[in-house]
C-alpha cells in the first residue's frame, strides 16, 4: 500500500512515515502542500493523509483541486481544530474520513485500512486465499492456521496481490506500490520478495506470467 502523507510538522510527519512503514505501508512524505499536491497527480497512491493546518496553502484547497481534477484516491484528513464545522467542511470538500489531533498511530493505520478496503470493494476484515488467511488490519498472515512471519515489504506485496486477485500486476506497478521515492530500489527487488513469499507460503502461491508480471490465481 503506497500512501501519500502531507504534513508540515516534522515530528508528526516523521513519526507517521516511520510507523506506517514499519506496519507495511509505503509512505511518501511532503512537508510542503504544493509539492504534495503535485505528487498525487504523478503517482498512483492507494490513500492520502492530508493535514489541514498547512502554513502556506490550505489543505482543503489541495483536496478540492484533486477532486476537481477527477482524482478519487481516498483521503484521510488530519485536523487540530476540534470543531464540527471544520470536519463537515472537510468531508464536504471530498475527504473520506478525518482524524482529530492528538491521534494514535494505530488509529491512522486502522482508518487507512478501512478506506483502502472500502475502495477495493472488500468488506470482510479477513482475506482468504487457498490455505492462506490475511488480516489487513493487523497485517498478519496465517498458513493452515499457523502464523507466518513476513517482512514488511513481503506483507505489502502479498496484500497487493491479494487485493488484485486474478489480475496480472507488472513489475513496475509493484515497484511503484511498494517503494517510496526515497527508497533505492534494486533491479531484482520484486523477484527477491516473490522468492521469499514462495519460500514461506508454498511454491505455487504466486504465479509468474512471463514478461508481463505476477498474479494470484484461484
Amino acid at each position, binding site marked *: 500500500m503506497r500512501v501519500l502523507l502531507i504534513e*508540515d*510538522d*516534522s*515530528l*508528526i510527519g*516523521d*513519526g*507517521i512515515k*516511520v*510507523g506506517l512503514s*514499519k*506496519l507495511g505501508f509505503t509512505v511518501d512524505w511532503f*512537508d*510542503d*502542500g504544493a509539492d504534495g499536491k503535485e505528487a498525487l497527480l504523478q503517482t498512483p497512491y492507494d490513500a492520502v493523509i492530508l493535514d489541514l*493546518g*498547512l*502554513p*502556506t*496553502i490550505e489543505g482543503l484547497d489541495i483536496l478540492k483541486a484533486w477532486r476537481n481534477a477527477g482524482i478519487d484516491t481516498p483521503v484521510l484528513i488530519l485536523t*487540530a*481544530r*476540534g470543531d464540527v464545522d471544520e470536519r463537515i467542511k472537510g468531508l464536504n470538500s471530498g475527504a473520506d474520513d478525518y482524524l*482529530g*489531533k*492528538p*491521534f*494514535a*498511530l*494505530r488509529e491512522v493505520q486502522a482508518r487507512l485500512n478501512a478506506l483502502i478496503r472500502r475502495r477495493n470493494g472488500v468488506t470482510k476484515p479477513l482475506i482468504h486465499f487457498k490455505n492462506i488467511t490475511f488480516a489487513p488490519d493487523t497485517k498478519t498472515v496465517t498458513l493452515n492456521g499457523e502464523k507466518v512471519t513476513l517482512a514488511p515489504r513481503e506483507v505489502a506485496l502479498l496484500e497487493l496481490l491479494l487485493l488484485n486477485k486474478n489480475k496480472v500486476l507488472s513489475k513496475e506497478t509493484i515497484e511503484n506500490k511498494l517503494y517510496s521515492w526515497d527508497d533505492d530500489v534494486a533491479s531484482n527487488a520484486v523477484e527477491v520478495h516473490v522468492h521469499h513469499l514462495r519460500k514461506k507460503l508454498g511454491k505455487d502461491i504466486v504465479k509468474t506470467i512471463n514478461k508481463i508480471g505476477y498474479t494470484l490465481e484461484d
Partner: protein
Amino acid sequence: MLKVVPYLADFCKKIDIKKLKFSLCFRLMFFFVVISAIVWGIAGYISYKETRESIDEFFDTYQLALSRQLAAADWSAVSQNTQDVTDKLIKNVENADDDDDAIGFAIFTRDGKMIFHDDENGKYFPLNTTAFGTFVNERLEREGDKWRLLRLYSADGRYIITVGQELEYREDLAMDIVEEFLTPWLFGFIFLLLSIAGLTYFEFRPLKKLAASINNRSADDLAPVNMDNAPVEVKPLIGAMNHMFQKITNLLKRERSFISDSAHELRTPLTALKIQLEIAQMADDDASMRQQALDKLQKGIERAERLVEQLLALSRLEADNGHYDNVEILNWNEICSHLIDEYRLMVKNKTIVLEADDKAQPPFCTGNHILTALLIRNLLDNAVKYSPENARITLKIADGKFTVTNSDTVVNENILQRLTERFFRPAGQKETGSGLGLAITERIAELYHCQLVFANTDEGFAVTIQAKEDI
C-alpha cells in the same frame, strides 16, 4: 396618633445612618431643611424687627395724640365720684375687658396725687417728675410689667398726664403678624420637602432601571446599554460603561482566541509525542528504530516545554498590560554582548557581531531588563536558526533603532506579513519552534511604544525595532 409611634420607631431602627450619608435623596432633603431653616430664621427675624418698629411708630403716635387730648381737657372738676361713675359705666360696656392691655392713663396733680385713671392699669402708673415729653420704658410696681409711658403737663400746667401701653402687648402683636406671615411659608416648606423626596425618587428611576437591566444580564452579555432615552446627566455614565463593555468584550475575545489557539497548538506537539512513543513501543528488536524514536520523543518534549513557556510568557505580557516593575536604565551594549557571547559558544560556524558605540541611541533607554533581554534574545535566536551556514549576523544599535540582520537570507514577501502572527510557522522548517517568538517580541516592543519592521536588504534579512510611527 399614638399607634404610629411604634411603627415610626421601628422604621427609624431600620434606617442605617451610615448608608443615609450616601443617599442622594437624604442629602438633598437634609441640605434643603438646613438651608430653609436658616433662610426662614433670618427672614423671620428681619420681618419681626421691622414689624416691631412699625408698631412702635403707630402706637407712639396714637399715645401722643391721646396724651394731647387728655392734656387739653379741664381736670379741675374731677372728683373721686367721677372716677367711680366712669368705672361703672365702662364696666357696662360690652367687651370692655378684652381691651385690657391696649392702653392706660393716669392724671396726677403736680403734688403727686392721682385724680383720675382708667380702671385697669392707669392706677398703677408710677409718678416720675423727671422724664417729661418723651417716651420711657418703665416697670410698673404691679407684676413688674414693662410699660411704655409718655408724660405731659396739662394745658393749664396743674396736672401731669401719663399715657402708657404695655410693651408685651406690642411684642405679642408683632409676633402674631410675623407668625401669620410665616405660617404659609412653613406649609410651603413641608410641601417642597415632600416634593424633593418624590422627585428624587422618580427622577432616579432611569438609574434604577439601568441597574436592573445590568443585574439581569448574563455574564457574557456585554452588548452596549441603550442610552437614547437616558437623562443628559446619566449619559456620560452609560457612555463610560459602554466603553468599558467594549474594552472587556475585546479583551474576552482576545483571551478566548488565545486559549483556543493555545489548545489547538498544544495538540500538535502532543500528537508528535504520542506517535513517537508508539513507534518506540513497536520497535520490538529494532534497537536503532527505538533509539531514533526516543531521541525524537525527547525533542518533542523539549518543543512542548518551550511552547508552554512561551505561552505563559505571552499570556503574562498580555495580562499585565505593561505594568512591569523594576524599570531601570538599560545598557543595550552590555545585554547584546552577553547574549552574543552565549550564542557564539553554541554556534561555531556563524559570525555574530555587534555594531554600536557607547553613544549609540537605542529604541528605548529605560525599561525592564529581563524583557529587553528576552526581546533581543528572540531576534538573535531567529537570526541564528534561520540563516544558512557561515552566515554573518549583525546586531546594530543606532539612531533610536535596533536592527538584527542575517546575511544570505531572503524571506518571502507573503511570509513577511505574517511573521508576528501567533503560531505562524512557514512551511518546510527544519528547526523546531512554536511560532510565538516574534509575537512575544512584538508585544514587548509595543510595551515600549515601539514596532517591528521586517525588510529584505542588500545585507540580508533585517528586523528593526524602532519607535512607533504616529498614524
